[in-house]
């Protein structure tokens, strides 16, 4: 199994496959995804409705999923974990309850909604797993993704870990499949550990 692309996001710096991709000179955490969205020239109006976690996961996926996907979308899996989940929007929804509770915010108070946004955008209908874990868990992730690619008919998998709360934006997403390609890295626990260690503080 091979990692064809990996995306690392630390605060206002984004790199792909180890090369700088975007940077934003923002003053607040919540501005960063917007600035990067504009810089990347993406046009997807629904983006502005998303909560912070979904925005970061959505953008990271935009940049790590290949432009041409050579796999059956019914068999593309998404496996993502998060420690802080959707704390940011939890707080905003709770505040909205003082007046009229906002359905638009409530929708985002589940961490797996970030997977929903990615699947809607890319049409991925394969398996999806969302776990809540303080730290990325390379052993679990490698088991989960390997089993899907080797035994469950999954053709490609978007996987990783995302943190998005005030003062902390960090994400590492990987595009993995069983097929080798030029410059692809082996998908295993050691590579995962290395990528996560160089992404998450």
């Amino acid at each position, binding site marked *: 199994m091979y990692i064809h692309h990996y995306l690392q996001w630390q605060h206002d710096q984004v790199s792909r496959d180890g090369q700088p991709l975007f940077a934003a000179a923002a003053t607040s955490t919540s501005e960063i995804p917007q600035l990067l969205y504009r810089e990347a020239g993406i046009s997807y109006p629904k983006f502005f409705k998303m909560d912070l976690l979904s925005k970061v996961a959505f953008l990271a996926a935009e940049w790590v999923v290949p432009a041409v996907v050579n796999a059956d*979308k*019914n068999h593309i899996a*998404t496996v993502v974990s998060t*420690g*802080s*989940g959707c*704390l940011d929007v*939890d707080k905003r*929804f*709770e505040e909205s*309850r*003082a007046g*009229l*509770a*906002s*359905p638009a915010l*409530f*929708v985002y*108070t*589940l*961490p*797996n*909604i970030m*997977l*929903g*946004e990615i*699947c*809607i955008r*890319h*049409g*991925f*209908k*394969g*398996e*999806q*797993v*969302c*776990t*809540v*874990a*303080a730290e990325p*868990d390379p052993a*679990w992730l490698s*088991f*989960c993704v390997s*089993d899907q690619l080797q035994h469950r008919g999954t053709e490609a998998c978007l996987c990783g870990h995302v943190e998005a709360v005030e003062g902390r934006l960090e994400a590492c997403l990987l595009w993995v499949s069983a097929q080798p390609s030029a410059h692809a890295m082996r998908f295993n626990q050691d590579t995962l550990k290395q990528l996560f260690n160089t992404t998450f503080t």
Partner: protein
Amino acid sequence: MPKAYIAGSGIITCIGNNTTENLSALRAGASGIGEARFLDTRHQLPVGEIRLSNEQLAERAGADPALPRTALLSIIAAKEAWEPLAGRAKGLRIAFISANTVGGMDLTEDFYASFKEDPQTGDKEKVRFHECGSITTLTLKALGLDCWSTTISTACSSSANSIMMGARLIEKDRYDIVIAGGADSLSRFTLNGFHSLMILDKEPCRPFDEHRQGLNLGEGAAYLVLAGDKAAAQLGVRPAAAVTGYANANDAHHQTASSPEGKGNQLAMARAIRQAGITPADIGYINLHGTGTQNNDASEGAAVSAIFGHSVPPASSTKGFTGHTLGAAGAVEAVYALLSIQEQACLPHLRLHTPMAALHWQPVTSMKAGLVQHVLSNSFGFGGNCSALVLSAV
């Protein structure tokens, strides 16, 4: 490949504090939906609330009453499932997978109210358990286990996915035993949220009725103890059933609504049935997701019709009894699927007055004896997550 046998189970819902009580209520057709007594809300909405205060739950759980209600429910169900087996598990590799959506929100919202008034007040101890993962940690500690664990959070399909992951870990021989399930308690946060989406029925819910008006929220917890054959033998249990099929798929349509044809539902059901090595005709009973919302029941109904054609097996939703227990629902209904196999009967569906005009089949309204070799259990959630489990008699 080792099979994921079901070596034990535990459950608490508004229709019973353990497996026996739940079965009696299902047999009697006794719904647990009613007015909220313990949830402090100004809304007059019926809920599936467990008729015990946090202090009473804590006493049953042997736990601190200051814990989140979700943790108390989780501990009660997990102990029922695990304690009879715990003494015989020496040397076995154990894992714990839990699921919830609400975490310690009930305590957070108490804290937040006073904090908003004056940031100098509010007991910060109360927000310690806000994140979903804390419920898993608290339950694990209460079981006296120190093993690998994780927390799945995929909305209303969460605990179906924890059972799916558990079965997978057994089949791949990663662990000998996986305790898998989930919990969720009522909170003002979720009640107001679902209310703002305008999908709560002001009366007891009527899933799969032409005039259904929405869902009722419920609360509960349930766990299965999954074990490979050697572990089951060491535990001294002769399992009645195993988890033989499981799948999840994304509907990739809308965050809070299913596609009209239930594309994701169809993919999940078809894959789970195929994985169990059977055909749709072998399914003896379907425990529907059946929330009672216009959208869910229409799209799930269409998906069931697409998979089963003109021979839809007996099907029912048990949410008329329990309400929608969100992150616990998949595990609650997996325990009901197990009961259906043990009792060789289909579980009844409540409050069906006018069958849906668009469907050529309708749910079974009484507890019906019949051969139940394989049960299909559906769980769908926000974010497009569609899961299906197949439990089979062994």
